[in-house]
């Protein structure tokens, strides 16, 4: 009999292979016993409100519980404007986060037995005692500031609260220096504020959407994907700049297949065209912006002809696309992007994007960037936090003057005795971030890890980082716990509830409980003056005239705007949140700090012969490295593949679906071989890979050894001097067709 097709044909083209990931009897049980084998309609499933934690868009939904326990399905909440009742594949596949048999189950403590290190299971009491005792010891010796937190996601708040109460604010998240930091810094310098998350981008009503390296559709931030689809329906012009034919590029009227690392040249030439062809929004710029003359002088020579030689984008196409933007303005937007740490001059690229938006008049106009509004919930009452003697700002050592959030890499640096010096960090708590895959410069990270007196990891899965922990604390998944109310700002304020749909599996516990337990052991009970988190939520909601009981019934509540309209009202004035109240086309703040007041183009490193620029990105069914073991999502995409142009493959004699190892410019070889995807969608000078695969931790049974880990190949990092972002796109790889480890043995 013919075998079943490759599981998903997109995978068949991309990475191929038959997917047979073991039986699934533990997932959903046998088929329902009616004649057609249809789901049993008579079984009324109970449902509980939640908001998703598989990525950080936090869509509100309903978790449906099977009559015999366990999660049947998760469906979006129709009232949530962030998802409109439609979760993305990761949200729908969130069931796999709960049912994953590889989940962490019990607290673990590192022990040395017969000279080898291993973990032993411990009771919660023992594990928590251990953590708090170690924290006390470190605080006594070095001060409480010597404890740092790395976090991502909902659980981070509880440990942030714990550490603030303990007396430290050395709290960092990769979401700043490894992701959106440059964007936020560039937009703040220009408009006085950034676009937040979810972004205040009015995609659904735009007439012209410009994407620069933003691959919406592969980057599955739900609301944006939905709105891009709406924009397509309404006939918006989409212009996509990408060295790869991304999904978004394939749906665009104009695809500009730019030479990688030259984006600023294109942006400057667009600014040039808008100004010198007098296409910019004169009324808006005159009313709201400062520095037009300086900008005009600055971009005088940045003509499309100049940019052509750098970007390989034809001058007429640069002019045409600038005109398309101007025709649509102010209902036009250059999307600010999100993961923007590329080449080390990323704040300036974000500045150029912000300036273009300003010239079109998009900030504050329909189809541009709207004024978001949220509602703030008061903190549950607690004593004032002690003031730390020093903080993360001190770890900057005078660098990165415009970093408004902690920089992960300087906290890591401060944890190494040679570089930490008077501000030495000795203990880490890591919550919800697999630091070894999310932060580059592995050598530095390993040095720090090996210098610590305490490393605690709180996670739901045995991610690589758990392998370095002294104590592993197993957290329950979002489907098994209460968490803070989601009160994210967007077109209208909303409140969304996450409550447990099922009891925590194994001996897992919610993060709020873990933080409270450690706090009480540290004598900080006054900061955790509640029985459980339900009490906190109830109190918070009552303060703003809402009730927990109601949210339990509806899951999400939309509240009316009270702080003014969504856009600038015609005839009214608007004061931007910059120092002068005006948009800064010329940034005095940057000039005063010793940086270029307006963006300039600097060439970046090029690949040597036989090497290709390593571009990484996202797949719609995975979130970073955190979903690589989720059974439902692994079934959709079990491994990543390296995208190679067929002409390049021809030179190398590489065949479709062949496995190769990747070696970077510093001689670092990927841990595992990766499948080749031959595709015309990628340039000849670049290769592309989806981030988050190539796990080397064996307890991740589905993820182990599948694909290549791009982070380990990112050894050349160009730090953005303005805010400390780690530019990671200056790495080049070549192909090894034979197992490099074998060569060494023979």
């Amino acid at each position, binding site marked *: 009999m013919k075998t079943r097709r490759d599981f998903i044909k997109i995978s068949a083209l991309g990475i191929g292979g038959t997917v047979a990931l*073991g039986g699934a009897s533990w997932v959903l049980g046998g088929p329902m016993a009616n004649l057609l084998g249809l789901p049993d309609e008579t079984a009324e499933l109970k449902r509980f409100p939640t908001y998703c934690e598989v990525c950080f868009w936090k869509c509100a939904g309903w978790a449906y519980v099977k009559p015999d326990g366990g999660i049947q399905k998760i469906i979006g909440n129709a009232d949530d404007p962030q998802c409109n009742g439609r979760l993305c594949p990761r949200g729908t596949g969130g069931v796999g986060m709960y049912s994953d048999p590889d989940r962490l189950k019990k607290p673990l403590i590192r022990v040395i037995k017969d000279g080898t290190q291993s973990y032993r299971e411990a009771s919660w009491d023992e594990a928590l005692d251990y953590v708090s005792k170690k924290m006390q010891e470190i605080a006594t010796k070095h001060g409480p500031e010597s404890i740092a937190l790395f976090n991502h996601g909902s659980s981070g708040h509880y440990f942030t609260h714990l550490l603030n109460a303990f007396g430290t604010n050395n709290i960092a998240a990769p979401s700043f220096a490894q992701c959106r930091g440059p964007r936020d810094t560039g937009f703040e310098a220009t408009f006085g504020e950034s676009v937040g998350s979810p972004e205040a981008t009015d995609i659904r009503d735009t007439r012209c959407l410009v994407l620069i390296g933003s691959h919406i*559709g592969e980057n599955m931030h739900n609301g944006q994907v939905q709105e891009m689809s709406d924009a397509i329906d309404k006939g918006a012009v989409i212009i996509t700049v990408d060295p790869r034919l991304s999904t978004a590029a394939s749906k665009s009227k104009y695809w500009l297949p730019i030479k990688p690392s030259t984006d600023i040249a294109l942006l400057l030439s667009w600014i040039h065209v808008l100004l010198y062809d007098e296409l910019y929004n004169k009324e808006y710029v005159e009313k709201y912006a400062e520095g037009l003359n300086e900008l005009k002088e600055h971009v005088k020579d940045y003509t499309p002809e100049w940019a052509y030689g750098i970007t390989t984008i034809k001058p007429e196409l640069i002019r045409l696309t600038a005109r398309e933007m101007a025709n649509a303005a102010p209902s036009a937007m250059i999307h600010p992007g999100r993961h923007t740490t590329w080449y080390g001059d990323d704040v300036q690229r974000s500045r150029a994007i912000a300036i273009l938006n300003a010239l079109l008049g998009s900030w504050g106009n329909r189809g541009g960037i709207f004024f978001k509004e949220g509602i703030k919930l008061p903190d549950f009452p607690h004593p004032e936090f002690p003031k730390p003697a020093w903080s993360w700002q001190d770890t900057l050592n005078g660098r990165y003057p415009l970093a408004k959030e902690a920089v992960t890499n300087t906290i890591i640096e401060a944890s190494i005795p040679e570089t930490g010096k008077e501000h030495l960090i000795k203990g880490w708590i890591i919550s919800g971030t697999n630091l070894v895959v999310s932060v580059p410069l592995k050598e530095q990270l390993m040095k720090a890890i090996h210098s610590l007196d305490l490393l605690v990891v709180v996670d739901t899965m045995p991610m690589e980082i758990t392998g370095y922990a002294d104590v592993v604390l197993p957290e329950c998944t979002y489907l098994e716990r209460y968490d803070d109310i989601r009160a994210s700002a967007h077109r209208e304020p909303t409140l969304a509830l996450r409550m447990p749909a099922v009891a925590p599996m194994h001996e897992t516990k919610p993060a709020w409980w873990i933080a409270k337990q450690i706090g009480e052991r540290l004598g900080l009970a006054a900061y955790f003056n509640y029985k459980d988190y339900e009490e906190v939520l109830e109190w918070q909601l009552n303060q703003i005239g809402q009730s927990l009981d109601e949210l339990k019934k509806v899951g999400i509540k939309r509240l009316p705007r009270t702080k003014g309209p969504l856009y600038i009202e015609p005839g009214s004035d608007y004061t931007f949140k910059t120092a002068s109240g005006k948009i800064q086309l010329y940034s005095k703040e940057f000039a005063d700090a010793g940086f270029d007041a307006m963006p300039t183009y600097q060439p970046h490193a090029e690949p040597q012969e036989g090497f290709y620029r390593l571009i990484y990105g996202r797949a719609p069914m995975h979130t970073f490295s955190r979903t690589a073991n989720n059974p439902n999502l692994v079934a959709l995409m079990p491994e990543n593949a390296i995208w190679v142009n067929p002409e390049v493959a021809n030179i190398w004699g590489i065949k479709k679906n062949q496995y190769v190892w990747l070696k970077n410019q510093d001689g670092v070889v990927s841990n595992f071989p990766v499948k080749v995807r031959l595709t015309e969608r990628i340039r000849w000078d670049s290769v592309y890979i989806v981030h988050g695969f190539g796990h080397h931790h064996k307890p991740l049974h589905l993820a182990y050894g599948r694909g290549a880990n791009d982070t380990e190949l990112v050894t050349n990092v160009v730090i953005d001097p303005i805010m400390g972002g780690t530019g990671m796109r200056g790495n080049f790889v070549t192909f090894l067709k034979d197992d490099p480890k074998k060569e060494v043995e023979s």
Partner: protein
Amino acid sequence: MRYAMAIDTRKCVGCSDCVVACQTENNVPIGFCRDWVSETVDGTYPNVSIELRSERCNHCDNSPCVRCCPTGASHIEDGGIVLVTQHRCIGCGACIQACPYEARYSHPDGYVDKCTFCIHRVRKGENPACVSVCPTKCMYFGDLDDPNSDIVNVLKNRKFKSLAPEAGTQPQIFYLV
């Protein structure tokens, strides 16, 4: 009454949400699927285009799977939905061979399984799970005999195609191009 589906290839991003939603709605065992996503790439860099399609059983009017079924397990329900009655299916696999769309698979429990258009939801007036979950709203489901249905409206106003029309199966999944 004639149920059918139209899928807008201009909007589909190939995210496979339809696949995982089908799985959790219909208890499809992991490792198998009733719907899937295909990608077709045309041209050479940089003059290249792609088409993404969410695919499944075409619920054909002239269905070879029903014709070849020796036990009558494969049959056509009201509204043209092609179904397999599990307890009548002997798992011979003839229908799998006959289907030009490779839309059927052998369930580990010994019968042949495929898309049901979520008939259990449709009977309650809901859309199939894949349609209702799709973040891009690229899928339209409805009754071709109802002139006011979304699907009739969209097929009237847009160019569309079906897959493997040469097989003569009269498929009822339409791709808007």
